[in-house]
């Protein structure tokens, strides 16, 4: 692990139309690290991810990946730099079947998982590989959304609330998957409300409030900081 951050965000501001949502977000992620964003509903977690990707175009500040400025790049070029995005609403395509959904994202670099590996990891998907993508249940869709990024060889992954609406068993399985990804050296930026889940995988936490980073601490301090978190998150 080098000291130079892989992803470096400085003073990021972002707007939806006229409404100013991010007010100077700073964020660093080192290669191979898993970082989790915590924050209440509406704190700006999703917006941060969308602004990093460039889905949200109205932004100011600096975003660098391996020192390369991402701000000026069109969305598809950002992806080609090796960032995989798993959106909040999952984004499964109804007009493609499960296998086609899985095959859809173009490879951005070598070393993605093979289809067989993916089916071993997610047997449900194998079983339903020829059904229409959106006919899967919520949980199955979530797995599909993660799986299809793993195939592309993206080494940096932005995950937005992967456990939302999922059954405990599935959450557990997704947790296992993330641990496995960490082992393979992936860099993960995770947005999560469920910190029981997050604790299992996160190296570091960032705490967000009203479009700003208000705190950051290493993963093992989570339990110790529970009270503070209660205050910010209203748990």
């Amino acid at each position, binding site marked *: 692990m080098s000291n130079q951050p892989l992803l470096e965000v400085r003073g990021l501001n972002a707007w939806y139309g006229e409404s100013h949502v991010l007010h100077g977000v700073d964020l660093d992620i080192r290669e191979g690290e898993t970082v989790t964003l915590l924050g209440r509903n509406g704190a700006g977690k999703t917006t941060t991810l969308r602004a990093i990707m460039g889905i949200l175009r109205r932004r100011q500040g600096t975003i660098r990946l391996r020192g390369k400025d991402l701000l000026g790049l069109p969305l598809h070029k950002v992806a080609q730099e090796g960032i995989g995005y798993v959106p909040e609403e999952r984004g499964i395509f109804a007009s493609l079947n499960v296998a086609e959904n899985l095959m859809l994202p173009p490879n951005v670099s070598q070393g993605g998982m093979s289809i067989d590996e993916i089916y071993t990891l997610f047997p449900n998907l194998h079983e339903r590989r020829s059904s229409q993508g959106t006919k899967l249940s919520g949980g199955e869709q979530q797995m599909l959304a993660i799986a299809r990024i793993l195939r592309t060889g993206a080494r940096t992954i932005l995950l937005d609330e992967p456990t939302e609406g999922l059954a*405990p068993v599935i959450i557990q399985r997704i947790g296992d998957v993330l641990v496995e990804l960490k082992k393979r050296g992936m860099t993960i930026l995770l947005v999560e409300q469920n910190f029981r889940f997050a604790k299992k995988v996160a190296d570091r936490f960032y705490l967000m409030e009203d479009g700003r980073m208000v705190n950051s601490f290493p993963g093992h301090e989570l339990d110790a900081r529970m009270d503070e978190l209660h205050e910010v998150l209203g748990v």
Partner: protein
Amino acid sequence: MVSTQPILSATGLTMEFRGFVAVKDVTLSVNEGTIHALIGPNGAGKTTVFNLLTKFLTPTRGQISFRGNDITGLKPAEVARLGLVRSFQISAVFPHLTVLDNVRVALQRPKNLATQFWLPFSSLSVLDDRALELIDAVNLSAYAHLTASELSYGRKRALEIATTLALDPAMLLLDEPMAGMGHEDIGRIADLIRRVAKNRTVLMVEHNLNVVADLCDRVTVLARGEILSDGSYATVSADPRVREAYMGTEHE
């Protein structure tokens, strides 16, 4: 007022999607005045069961009866008119109407003030008292004149419940009412559900097991389209099959 009289019962409910059986031979009965939970892993078929019960889908096989009437052949709007009203997994309000108007829209039908195209708008003001009462019941009085789109997620769900209550339904079907909700809202909605369930029946889908344990009189567990277990929370959560298929090993 927990009775043992079923208000809604489904027998042999089966739903096939082009060869894929999403719901298989489900027989379910919900007793009048209870809060009944439907839980199960993702893809178990919970939302599908809801869609079948409220006729947004037509079952491949099986019968549904509500308060003694066979409703298997009815249309969704007709089911709602009989007093079986649902919410959606994705929040459903009328975003550009005010909170008050959202509730008034729901009140218009039971008060027979919906088809009069010759009456002025002001004739709707007779509904205001009742509407404000309902809004108050869900703690939204302070927001009555905001448009629904300006509400936070949790308040939107509260509004949705208020509009549903406006119909004074005998039975409510709630699909994941707490999903995506912040912690502070969860408690509020749970209270609200408990309150409205005083004199009606509730069937809800929910993944938050604390809420289920806390709120529900009875739990039906669905897995792979079939009923896996049925009974009180304590009974089902002790069932090893349920633990394996749903709760996982971590849950106490």
